[in-house]
């Protein structure tokens, strides 16, 4: 059996005698005897080498694709080597939440820097220290906009369906109402709903689930005209080249920050970012780091505005969140530092341009784009036989787009995919279609 217990039998005996117990079972005297487990039905423990072999064998059963043309909420981008190197520092990996600020300045300062970068990216005034992922960030944002009179969230049907589902689950808990705003030509059709006096907020995703660019300003204006708040769920890479949520009038900007240096890793850990205007920031859930001074006047950082939080306010807290995704936020900060504004724009422009190139090649191969108008790095094409197309791509080591129903595919291209790979994929598709 494997163990990480340092104490020897002799030491354990000495410790038992120090506490005045004959055996360790004595210490469990409060546990009703009939409840004690005799033996767990688990495999015997094993050595590190055996564990390595077992788990590596599981990993080997997964298929790693050389080329990935699938996004839909998880995006494979280039991750600079320096990111992993920095992020694997043991101090950061193994520390707890920075409750003891004097010995947590590294974490606190990194979060303060992350908050600053999220504000730079979104144009918003204040960012929190992170939440679990883009979907929970969106669900928490709805709750921020709720008040006694306004209990209804309007959510674009063009948002990620999983994110909408998470919002619904949160609303099942809180009792907030959720109505979807229908789609028209792959975009949010706000004219199809009437925002009533109970409208708490309007949520759209930018670029939306289909990759299309929404007319965010107009939707924001309509939301505000009805007295509702405006929430935008944003792709952080796109924000390097796309007008900011602040410029579009968003009250709250959230999103999935996995594209900022995190592996796709079968869905997690990812990173939910949340930023708000000055007027809204006290409603942000979760940790927020602030700058202050120590008794000697030295600049330092602390967890602040904790009066919003569960450990102080208990049932009156703005959210129950305690642990967040600190190391992922740290990773995103290192990624944005490594990329800089220039690198971020380059990643965005490469993804944008390659996606458009691929859309053109697919059209030549017979797969026409379904929607009109501008898109970022994802787009939907028609496809009569998605299974066959995707199977042929799969045989060539290419993970094709995500099938949407029986006759459409949602494609994604990032800077990781070369023109040769795109040409090769298009050629295979041309053969099939």
């Amino acid at each position, binding site marked *: 059996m494997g163990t990480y217990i340092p104490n020897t039998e002799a030491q354990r005996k000495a410790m038992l005698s120090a506490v005045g117990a004959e055996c360790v079972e004595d210490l469990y005297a409060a546990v009703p005897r009939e409840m004690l487990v005799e033996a767990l039905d688990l495999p015997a423990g094993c050595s590190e080498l055996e564990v390595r072999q077992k788990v590596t064998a599981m990993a080997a059963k997964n298929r790693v694709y050389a080329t990935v043309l699938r996004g839909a909420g998880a995006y494979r981008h280039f991750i600079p080597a320096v990111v992993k190197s920095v992020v694997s520092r043991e101090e950061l990996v193994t520390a707890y939440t920075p409750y003891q600020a004097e010995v947590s300045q590294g974490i606190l300062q990194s979060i303060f820097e992350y908050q600053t970068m999220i504000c730079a990216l979104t144009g918003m005034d204040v960012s929190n220290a992170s939440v679990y992922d883009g979907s929970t960030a969106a669900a928490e944002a709805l709750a921020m906009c709720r008040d006694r009179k306004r209990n209804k969230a309007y959510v674009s049907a063009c948002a990620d369906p999983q994110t909408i589902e998470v919002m619904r689950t949160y609303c099942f808990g*809180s009792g907030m109402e959720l109505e979807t705003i229908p789609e028209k030509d792959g975009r949010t059709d706000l004219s199809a709903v009437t925002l009533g006096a109970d409208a708490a907020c309007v949520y759209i995703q930018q670029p939306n689930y289909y990759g299309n660019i929404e007319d965010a300003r107009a939707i924001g204006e309509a939301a505000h005209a009805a007295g509702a708040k405006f929430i935008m769920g944003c792709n952080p890479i796109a924000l390097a080249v796309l007008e900011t949520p602040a410029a579009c009038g968003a009250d709250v900007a959230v999103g999935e920050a996995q594209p900022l240096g995190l592996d796709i890793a*079968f869905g997690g850990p990812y990173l939910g970012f949340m930023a708000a205007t000055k007027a809204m920031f006290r409603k942000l859930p979760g940790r927020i780091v602030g700058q202050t001074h120590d008794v000697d006047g030295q600049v330092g950082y602390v967890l602040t505005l904790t009066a919003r939080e569960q450990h102080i306010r208990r*049932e009156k807290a703005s959210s129950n969140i305690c642990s967040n995704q600190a190391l992922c936020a740290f990773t995103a900060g290192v990624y944005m530092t490594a990329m800089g504004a220039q690198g971020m724009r380059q990643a965005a422009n490469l993804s944008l341009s390659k996606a458009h190139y691929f859309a053109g090649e697919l059209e030549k191969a017979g797969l026409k784009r379904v929607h009109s108008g501008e898109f970022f790095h994802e787009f939907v094409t028609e496809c009569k036989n998605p299974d066959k197309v995707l199977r042929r791509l799969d045989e060539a080591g290419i993970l094709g787009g995500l099938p949407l129903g029986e006759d459409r595919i949602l494609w994604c291209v990032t800077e990781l995919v070369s023109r040769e790979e795109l040409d090769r994929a298009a050629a295979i598709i041309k053969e099939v279609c």
Partner: protein
Amino acid sequence: MKLIFEKGAPGQHLTLLPACDVPEVTLSNARTEPLDLPHVSETELTRHYTALAKRVHGVNDGFYPLGSCTMKYNPKINEDMANLPGFTQIHPLQGEETVQGCLEVLHESEKLLCEVTGMNAMTFQPAAGAHGEFTGLLLIKAYHTHRQDTGRTKIIVPDSAHGTNPASAVMAGYTVVNVPSSPDGCVDVEALRAAVGPDTAGLMLTNPNTVGIFDRNILEITRIVHDAGGLCYYDGANLNAVMGVVRPGDMGFDVIHLNLHKTFSTPHGGGGPGAGAVGCKEFLAQFLPGPMVAKDEKGYHFTVPAHSIGRVKNFCGNFAVVVRALTYVLTLGREGIPEAAKNAVLNANYMMKKLGEKYAMAYAGPCMHEFVMTLVDLKEATGVSAMDIAKGLLDHGIHPPTMYFPLIVHEALMIEPTETESQETMDEVCQVFLDLWDLAHENPQALHDAPTKTPVRRLDEVGAARNPVLRYNAG
């Protein structure tokens, strides 16, 4: 220390991406604002973050007895396994036949951790303990709703509970009923009996509780709630004391969450990511968030429970954290799991005994995996508070215990050594604690002034909250 924004110079950058090999495209509603991100060289970048890392106390830097947080050693094999390309490079929306290894990780983890907890089904979607609480409470809500038992609007929470418990209950749409603890720190059974009724949806409890005591009335407690028609939720934050020794399922709990980043040795990353796996009894499995993983003769596949509450997070949760926890459970196995719990309890009792020479304990021993000291008398005698002792520890390279929690104990310090600390380490640490006690009497000012050896000294938290500076602004 300077911020990353104050380092380097405009124009400094890394060379990371190639030139565009396709015609360039621009968007019509393009960004017009500048993008103010740092501009540094790779050298400067690595030095900055290395300097930040040096200003953090992690488990590898020294003793970390943060009560209720189970800061045990984080085995390095776990990291290696989570970083296998066969996991990190897998898209969450790949076809089931191409992710059989990932599904096996989830299915095996479910099977093993259900056995450890006495549950029948488990989801790994929740990302943290509080997220697990929320999920578990929604299962309870879905259960009552499904039975059209709509009058159950209250969740009972003891006053010793973690703050997340009442906050989660409110997020799930419940009203919180606080029940007082009895003088021994356990649930006041009569108060509980008086609190339950036809409006009781459930009870949230951690056992051992937050003062480190196993509630010997646990079967009666869960029976009282069940008899009233409510369900019992187990907060698994303190499972490290009892894993493999006694199971929440056998105590009468219907739904639980586990903090994989506590009991199951995955690192906490300075605040996350964790994983808040939620397990439940068979009758609640139909309400779990989807998808779950099932196995048949063809292999593993996703399935959505019949009356699922819906997703609580995208994809399958913090998957890489689950890989680490599975690696840990496979390493320890059937003997190692209870062995870890028993040594965690032994270590805690050992420290309790040694510190009891001078410090007052809030409750008599034996304790489980942690114990709570109350420094009320010390403060009265010397003016030195729990906070002062905590700050004094920092100068000795020791991370302080959890302070001022649980709320029912005044001047509380809650100590949880975990099983991965050696007797030598604990002896050294106890000596520091005892020396600080003496120092409190001899020179209390020294402790009011502590720490002095840390990168910064005590920080002005009040000022930080009064005039919030929450981001860097270039002058």
